[in-house]
């Protein structure tokens, strides 16, 4: 299955019944898939007039208690940022997929990781955080999308899937998760439903004029983010045990890195990979742990160096941290990267 389709089908199986989107390459498979699939499962598909409208349709459907999703790519995500801030402030769940392209501006449609800052720093206004999941293959496009709906509901927060053009358009075999019964999902006692006289009226809002109440609301959000940081960090280690040098890479870059590591391991270089799966919360503790033994970190990203800031913070000066990246939407082959690794390794450790 194509990555984008795997993501869309997994969303359906996770109980997503409200999809609103606006076309942008390289994620058009998602709205196209949903346009066919939503009616089949009794859901709603709307091609909105813009990314802004789409994210607010998501907000409406989510406030009304439905599992809702939108997807887009970089320039479209810029437009959705306002809505992401409102979803966070209103404490509403939603799933947003960003199949990243090269940027800034229109950039190009090749896979890129240039939105790392935008995705992990919130992007929209205000003190909020968002869970960001970075799939590393098509199976994970399905699995992490499936998971994202549960995480969004559990914490009442928007969750972003940060993929890229390559991940979205790669074809691989996938085992799809089971179809849940939407009727079995727990009732949302915060949702607007039209109260039918049975209870007091409900309001979902983020306008809090009283300063001390707003402060309390913000602390409440921060407590939630602490809880997420404590419970939801996900990462994968590859050949880490004896690694003297650790590559930190996510998504497509991590795949390339694995190929490169296999090559250099054959030459006897002790190199491993630490792949963040959650970009927020970031696996800082795992990186700090690795920094106890590994003395050199090479951060490899398909951008000009964004995640490296998080890696540096986690390493806290206990090892050297370097960067290799390609910001044009192009990506090196495992062989290219293996060369870079070998050069660095030889500088730092021993000549081979």
């Amino acid at each position: 299955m194509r990555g984008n389709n795997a993501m869309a089908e997994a969303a359906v199986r996770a109980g997503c019944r409200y999809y609103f989107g606006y076309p942008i390459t390289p994620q058009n498979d998602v709205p196209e898939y949903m346009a066919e699939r939503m009616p089949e499962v009794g859901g709603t598909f709307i091609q909105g007039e813009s990314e802004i409208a789409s994210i607010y349709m998501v907000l409406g459907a989510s406030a009304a208690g439905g599992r809702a999703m939108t997807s887009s790519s970089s320039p479209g995500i810029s437009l959705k940022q306002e809505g992401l801030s409102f979803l966070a402030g209103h404490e509403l769940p939603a799933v947003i997929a960003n199949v990243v392209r090269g940027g800034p501006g229109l950039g190009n449609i090749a896979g890129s990781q240039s939105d790392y800052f935008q995705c992990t720093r919130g992007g929209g206004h205000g003190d909020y955080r968002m869970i960001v999941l970075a799939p590393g293959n098509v199976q994970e496009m399905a699995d992490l999308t499936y998971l994202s709906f549960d995480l969004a509901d559990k914490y009442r927060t928007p969750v972003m899937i940060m993929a890229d053009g390559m991940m979205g358009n790669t074809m691989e075999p996938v085992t799809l998760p089971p179809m849940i019964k939407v009727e079995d999902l727990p009732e949302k006692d915060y949702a607007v439903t039209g109260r039918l006289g049975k209870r007091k009226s409900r309001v979902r809002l983020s306008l809090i004029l009283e300063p001390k109440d707003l402060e309390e609301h913000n602390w409440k959000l921060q407590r939630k983010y602490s809880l997420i940081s404590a419970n939801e960090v996900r990462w994968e280690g590859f050949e880490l045990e004896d690694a003297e040098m650790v590559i930190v890479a996510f998504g497509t870059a991590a795949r390339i890195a694995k190929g490169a590591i296999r090559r250099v391991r054959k030459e006897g270089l002790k190199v491993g990979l630490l792949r963040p799966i959650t970009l927020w919360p970031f696996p800082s503790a795992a990186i700090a742990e690795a920094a106890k033994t590994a003395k050199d970190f090479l951060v490899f990203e398909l951008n000009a160096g964004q995640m490296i800031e998080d890696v540096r913070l986690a390493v806290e000066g206990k090892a050297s941290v370097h960067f290799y990246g390609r910001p044009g939407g192009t990506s090196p082959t495992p062989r290219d990267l293996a060369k870079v690794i070998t050069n660095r390794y030889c500088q730092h450790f021993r000549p081979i």
Partner: protein
Amino acid sequence: MQKVYSRPKYLKDAAFHYCPGCGHSIVHRLVAEVFEEMGIGERAIGVAPAGCAVLAYNYFDCDFVEGAHGRGAAIATGIKRRWPDAVVFSYQGDGDLAAIGTAETIHAAARGENITIIFVNNGIYGMTGGQMAPTTLRGMKATTAPFGREPRREGYNLDITHLVAEIEGTAFAARALITTPKEIKKAKKLIASAFECQLQGRGFSIVELVSACPTNWKLSPLASIKFIEENMAKAYPPGVLVERRLPEAAKE
């Protein structure tokens, strides 16, 4: 003694924060009365705007979602698709609906989205302190049109309801003046017709209420009413702009 008026069932027991002579208070009451008379208040879900009516949910006793500036029609769309049997409405000002939210409004109409928009046109940005709105009349002063709106400089005023009425998905578009008791009664009838249209599943409905902002017009409440009658009503004449029967698709 005969009781001739009491607080409508769907207005909470809270004092309005609106300025004296402001149309928002009157429009709130009209909508709440319509809910009660039509027996739809229990099914109502509202979307509040950014604008002077930002706290509408403190007054209406029904489920509410606070919207972002201009996005009311999109949010209402999401809610309505989730609960097709609910009575979903968005309450918006002219800055909200005719400037930042133009696209959301026009496209909700184009989809024939089965929601109702209560549109309060006071020709100015009230909440932010009297800046020019798309609906500000020619010659009318605003803090950002200090010399009075001159089309060659500030552009022409926009009759957005008229524009929306042209769209096939709009089942009902009407306009009323919040001036005299007689006009206000007409306004209530039009609001009721708009909700009736939603109940019948006929598509998008909008009621524009041409309403006073004495504070930012810098006129007394009475002079404001006169200003509506003499000026606003010429640019925004009251009446039913369009009424379409069941959409083509539903007839087949």
